[in-house]
């Protein structure tokens, strides 16, 4: 039997590793390495290796479903699309288009995300968002303000060229495992690695300097470092003068903030802060990698700005081995943002509140009345749904009932909607409360482009047919749009990409033909002969007068702190074997078999006081709810802090809805909680 190797992009994290799906008799039978792939060099983490397990999974949705009595009835696509058109159409007719909301998916292709946001805006609602809100909204807001572009400044393999790598709020060894190979390459060449994290994680194993700070004190740590750099004159005066503005004000803001003060707040010894400051500032090329430990805070935007401040004052940006590197969580969260599936941006990061943008797209889409943004963010939509300001929702490939904070109230809010349609590959917690569920194709069952965390746009080909009557998201969106009276005539992903080439300047030169041939292009790529731009900001910033802006930030404590009633700080994160809400990984036998249960990491000293042994079942409770988990005692976590992975339904029952005032990201990383042994 002939085996065909189909090149695809891993459906899990944002690293965007490529691999071949081996297809035999129309089934995906194996994975073959892609040794020339620029990011992974053929490597795959455990999730990538298990990715095929979800393709032919028995729980896949194979037919459109509608709610019937207490269960579900299989229906035809005609009926399903009719129901969606009626549900959304009635809500629009009765309450107006701004009473409906759409959630795009950072798991879908660029083309699909483009169409979803276009659908939303042509229907007249500004409420279109995606789950970037829950991971990197502060990066979009913060980096757009300071650097003029939201994305990793340098490609992942460039990490190997760095001589000092500062990893803050990222457990990349577990969440983006292939990134660690480049860090090790840098270490082989003599690089110093600094890791700041409340937990000792496998990432911290790589560290030469490990700063174990208290959750929510990142700004204090970064300011302490900045203070030391300024004090010792390790700043790059030439760079500051030529390329930035705002340094004077910044200098004033850090003047008082000594490492000793930072030590007081963060719990990190002052000498370590000083060592880190010297290492970062004095190396020939330093790089900062961060992810959700920085962004998922009420101070997320401040954290991001504090990070970019460090890079700007030392001039560690715009060259090989330097930069500010937000590691994105989902395989296409970068692309979904690029495509404008965000409340504040139209495609290509054009501001939604700018009349120029509206004019531009009115012409491009031949639509006279496009809504002005910003609309309601993903988390605000839920609140609006609860209060009746949103009447109908169309959710594509997202699971807010699991992934959003305070998930019990999310579920209640969604249940209160007049009409909810969910489009997914599995029956997620969100789909369970929907009126209509549409079965979608998984990544290898459709084609399209994905943009990874380093802005590399890659084409993923179709390997196998979707199960049952499931359809690619692109086709479903077109069906729904046409049933709502819109002229969505896109025969395939390539035809959508052609429109993207015309409307998104960063993608202008990223054509289907080039992606097929060249195996990935890094945006901005403004024309067909442009080679792509792996390193941003090498000749200035896309801001007024081309200067990066140094923005003073002020330390604010997290929304919740320890109290007598809730004496522990709960922080959340990911583990190596699961991905996000886990709708895929918890169905993968080889992954769930290795990490079957929700656990909570506790410092042994704390545990002893509470009389908890390793493996005991404990109740973790916050003001919002209570969850059971198995205790896991480890010295790796600070006293007074506990950690839970958020891949299981229980965790987000606990987390707070308190959000960053600008980026509206919830503070997943700090919640005050109480622990008690379950007997």
């Amino acid at each position, binding site marked *: 039997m002939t085996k065909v190797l189909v090149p695809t992009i891993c459906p899990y994290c944002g690293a965007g590793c490529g691999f071949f799906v081996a297809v035999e008799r129309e089934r995906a039978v*194996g994975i073959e390495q892609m040794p020339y792939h620029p990011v992974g060099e053929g490597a795959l983490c*455990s999730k990538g*290796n298990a990715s095929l397990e979800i393709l032919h999974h028995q729980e896949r949705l194979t037919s459109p479903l509608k709610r019937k009595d207490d269960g579900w009835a299989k229906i035809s696509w005609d009926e399903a699309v009719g129901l969606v058109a009626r549900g959304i159409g009635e809500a629009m007719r009765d309450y107006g288009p701004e009473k409906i909301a759409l959630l795009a998916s950072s798991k879908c292709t660029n083309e699909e995300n483009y169409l979803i946001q276009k659908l939303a805006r042509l229907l007249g609602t500004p409420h279109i968002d995606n789950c970037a809100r829950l991971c990197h909204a502060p990066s979009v807001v913060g980096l757009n303000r300071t650097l003029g572009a939201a994305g990793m400044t340098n490609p992942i393999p460039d990490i190997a060229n760095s001589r000092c790598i500062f990893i803050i709020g990222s457990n990349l060894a577990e969440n983006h495992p292939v990134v660690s*190979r480049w860090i090790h390459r840098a270490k082989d060449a003599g690089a110093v690695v600094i890791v700041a994290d409340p937990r000792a994680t*496998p990432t911290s194993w790589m560290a030469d300097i490990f700063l174990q700070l208290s959750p929510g004190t990142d700004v204090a740590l970064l300011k302490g470092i900045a203070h030391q750099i300024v004090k010792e004159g390790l700043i790059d005066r030439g760079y500051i003068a030529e390329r930035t503005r705002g340094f004077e004000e910044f200098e004033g803001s850090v003047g008082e903030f000594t490492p000793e003060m930072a030590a007081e707040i963060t719990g990190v010894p002052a000498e370590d802060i000083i060592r880190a400051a010297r290492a970062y500032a004095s190396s020939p090329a330093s790089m900062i990698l961060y992810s959700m430990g920085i962004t998922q805070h009420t101070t997320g935007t401040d954290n991001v700005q504090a990070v970019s401040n460090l890079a700007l004052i030392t001039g560690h940006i715009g060259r090989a081995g330097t930069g500010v590197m937000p590691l994105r969580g989902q395989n296409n969260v970068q692309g979904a943002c690029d495509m404008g599936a965000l409340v504040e941006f139209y495609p290509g990061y054009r501001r939604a509140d700018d009349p120029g943008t509206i004019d531009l797209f009115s012409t491009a889409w031949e639509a006279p009345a496009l809504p002005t943004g910003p609309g309601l963010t993903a988390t605000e939509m839920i609140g609006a749904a609860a209060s009746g300001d949103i009447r109908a929702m169309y959710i594509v490939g997202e699971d807010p009932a699991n992934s959003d904070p305070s998930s019990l109230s999310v579920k209640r809010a969604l249940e209160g909607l007049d009409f909810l349609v969910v489009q997914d590959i599995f029956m997620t917690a969100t789909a369970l409360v929907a009126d209509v569920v549409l079965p979608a194709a998984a990544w290898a069952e459709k084609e399209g482009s994905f943009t990874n965390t380093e802005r590399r746009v890659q084409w993923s080909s179709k390997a196998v047919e979707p199960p049952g009557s499931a359809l690619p998201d692109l086709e479903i969106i077109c069906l729904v749009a046409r049933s709502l009276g819109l002229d969505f005539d896109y025969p395939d992903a390539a035809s959508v990409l052609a429109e993207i080439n015309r409307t998104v300047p960063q993608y202008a030169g990223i054509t289907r033909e080039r992606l097929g041939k060249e195996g990935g292009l890094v945006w901005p790529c403004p024309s067909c002969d442009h080679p792509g731009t792996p390193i941003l900001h090498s000749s200035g910033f896309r801001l007024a007068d081309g200067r990066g802006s140094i923005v003073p930030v002020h330390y604010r404590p997290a929304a919740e702190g320890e109290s007598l009633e809730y004496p522990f700080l709960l922080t959340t994160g990911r583990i190596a074997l699961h991905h996000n809400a886990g709708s895929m990984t918890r169905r993968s036998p080889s992954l769930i078999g290795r990490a079957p249960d929700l656990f909570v990491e506790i410092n042994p000293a704390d545990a002893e006081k509470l009389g908890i042994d390793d493996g005991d079942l404990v109740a973790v409770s916050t003001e919002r709810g209570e969850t059971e988990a198995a205790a896991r005692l480890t*010295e790796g976590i600070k006293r007074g802090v506990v950690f839970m992975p958020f891949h299981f339904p229980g965790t987000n029952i606990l987390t707070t809805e308190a959000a960053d005032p600008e980026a509206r990201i919830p503070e997943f990383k700090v919640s005050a909680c109480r622990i008690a042994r379950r007997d």
Partner: protein
Amino acid sequence: MAFYVDITRCIGCRSCEVACERVHGGRGHVQVHFVEDSASVPLFCHHCEEASCAAACFSGALFKEDTRTAFDVEKCTGCGLCSLACPFGVVWTDKIAHKCDLCDGRPEPTCVATCPADALSTDLDHLSRRARSRGARAAAQGGRR
């Protein structure tokens, strides 16, 4: 041929376990062990020069072939003597023995190809050269840290 691990690189992601399981029909031959939350190490067959498993095998299913310890599934009866004879506990038996076959027929063992941290290699010289150069540079920069 055997393969080697650079323990300082291993990040405990268990990719090798899952990959091995994938290419061997659900029966993996690698197990990642964690030590005190401070290090992890994949344990796999060393293809011992004097292989105890082969010495204990009565049916000829396990045997030395050049430098590797080969396994002929056709001959295995699942007696489990090899599992008890492996000093490292990395030969498993469940109705039938299974152990590392260096991914026979593939250009490179899958665990080596898939290791995200580049911690595994079939080339011991390469690993030790890399480790030596890292050690030397760390020593040279010792003052600055």
